[in-house]
């Protein structure tokens, strides 16, 4: 059984169907590439999966459980982590504090923790701190742990976003254009991070990306979306060679390749 499935998933904004009747299955441990022209509904799809948006129709099934009506924090609790397209970081915090905040799910603290505090919390907080440093080492930011998160260059901020998402130890990682605005070196290191993660921890990853070359190197399977619908599904190479995909990207009589 697939880890994450959507059945006839739809999202309408007024009369615009951003995602319509989308059936998709993501297997445990794979890196799935999600490509498509601008406005194809890729980000909307991720928003539906992580709960930022409520679906207009259809179902999302995660590990056999229907999570269509779950709020974002409950989905995060189940192991769905998200890296936003913008560099979403806590701007009043340092690099390390950002990752600590990301470890929230490992701290046993809820809204009512304001009323009690136990030694158990303190002990746990120490363990969490050690894990955070490990994560920063993993993405290569260990030397910058005390800098303000927003003072990092764009590429490092992106890596930090991934570290923050990983802090919750997710089963599925949703990456929304992780390579946007990066130079070649940063791109390579980000791809390395995603691949290592997948190889060592088996983290299932869904990547939305415009950089087709990167997708070719990263994913074993890709899905092309157009107008909120699945255009084609297969290996990335099959996808980019498909006439329908070329038409969707470049128009009917393109003669580029």
């Amino acid at each position, binding site marked *: 059984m697939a880890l994450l499935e959507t059945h006839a998933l739809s999202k309408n904004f007024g009369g615009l169907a951003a995602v319509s009747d989308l059936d998709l299955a993501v297997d445990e441990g794979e890196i799935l590439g999600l490509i498509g022209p601008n406005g194809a509904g890729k980000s909307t799809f991720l928003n539906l999966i992580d709960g930022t948006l409520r679906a207009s129709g259809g179902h999302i099934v995660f590990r056999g459980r229907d999570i269509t009506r779950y709020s974002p*924090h409950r989905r*995060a609790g189940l192991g769905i982590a998200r890296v936003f397209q913008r560099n979403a*970081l806590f701007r*009043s915090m340092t690099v390390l*504090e950002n990752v600590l*905040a990301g470890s929230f799910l490992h701290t046993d603290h809820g809204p009512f923790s304001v009323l009690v*505090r136990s030694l158990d919390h303190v002990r746990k907080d120490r363990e969490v701190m050690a894990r955070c440093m490990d994560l920063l080492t993993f993405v290569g930011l260990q030397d910058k742990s005390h800098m303000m998160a927003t003072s990092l260059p764009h590429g490092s901020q992106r890596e930090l976003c991934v570290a923050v998402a990983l802090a919750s130890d997710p089963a599925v990682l949703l990456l929304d254009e992780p390579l946007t605005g990066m130079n070649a070196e940063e791109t390579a290191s980000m791809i390395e991070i995603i691949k290592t993660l997948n190889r060592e921890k088996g983290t299932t990853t869904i990547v939305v990306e415009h950089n087709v070359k990167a997708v070719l190197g990263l994913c074993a399977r890709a899905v092309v979306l157009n107008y909120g619908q699945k255009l084609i599904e297969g290996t990335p190479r099959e996808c980019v060679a498909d006439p329908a995909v070329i038409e969707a990207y470049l128009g009917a009589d393109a003669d580029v390749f």
Partner: protein
Amino acid sequence: MSETKRGRTVAKAAAVVVLVVVVFLMPNILSGNKYWLTILTLLAINVLLVSSLRSVILINEISLGHVGFALIGAYAQALLMMKGGLTFWPSLILSGLLAAAVASLLGHPFLKVRGIYFSILTLLTAETFRLVVYYWTGLTGGSLGLVGVPSPEPVTLFGRTVEFNTVNTYYYLAVGVVVIALLILYHFERAYINFQWRAIRDDSMLAGALGINVVGFKMVNFTISAFMAGISGGLFAAFQHNLSPDTTSRFGVTMSIYLLVYMVVGGQTRFIGPLIGTAVLTLVAEATRSIAEYQPMVTGSIAILVMIFLPMGLAGIPAQIQTWLRKRRLRSAEAPVGGGTER
């Protein structure tokens, strides 16, 4: 580094000790001057109200409705004591709980909106509470006010009976309750879910995606803050012995705005801010009593000056001076090099 840190901790502790001693001996210092003790008692009650307002800042919202919760607390306190036959302490707790209950009911719809919409909603809700009290003449006395709220019952301490029917003694009671309430609020803000508050304030969308129950945290925050506002209302009712729901009373819109000004002048980023802001502006109001009709202008100009020159408020002055000194030191360090800045 740790030397200066330790020095700062010692200085802070010393300041707290001095403050406690001064507050404790205040009736003696003022040799029982009723006028000033009344002002100080009201000041303490207002500090609690402003602090409760400030705790909503933690979730990045500005509430203009805390006078509404204070009103609920005050009338609950009065009615529970006068008609419910309860004694002071249980009704104080109950009035706080009632305000908290109302806040938790309103919290869910309210916290779905943000920013100015939240402020407007809370403002209108407070006005609604006030008008309900105004027109519910049978229960609250309406515009005539509710007269004869009893003082707290006497307490026997170490074989001495302490009555709370004079300002002299009520001052201690009010300050005591306010200090305990502030300690609770401080714990609640600083203790260790500090991260979650900051996360929600910085980016609530990301916080949600990381598993933080944003709405839950906001609800708890709003409820606790309303509880404290209710307690401050209860303290006020038992102190003043009469309540009025007029526009010009402390439950009107003007008071909401004043509370906000107290908070901003004191500095909303610091816990001590409401204390400083309320104290300074109350003293300014007293000092300018001879030109009472110009008081709002004086308060307003102070607020404007503070916002322009001290964006962190009066409580931020030490930090401001530090940055200023550091800049000066940097500049004087660079100056001899003569424009050879390497940075």
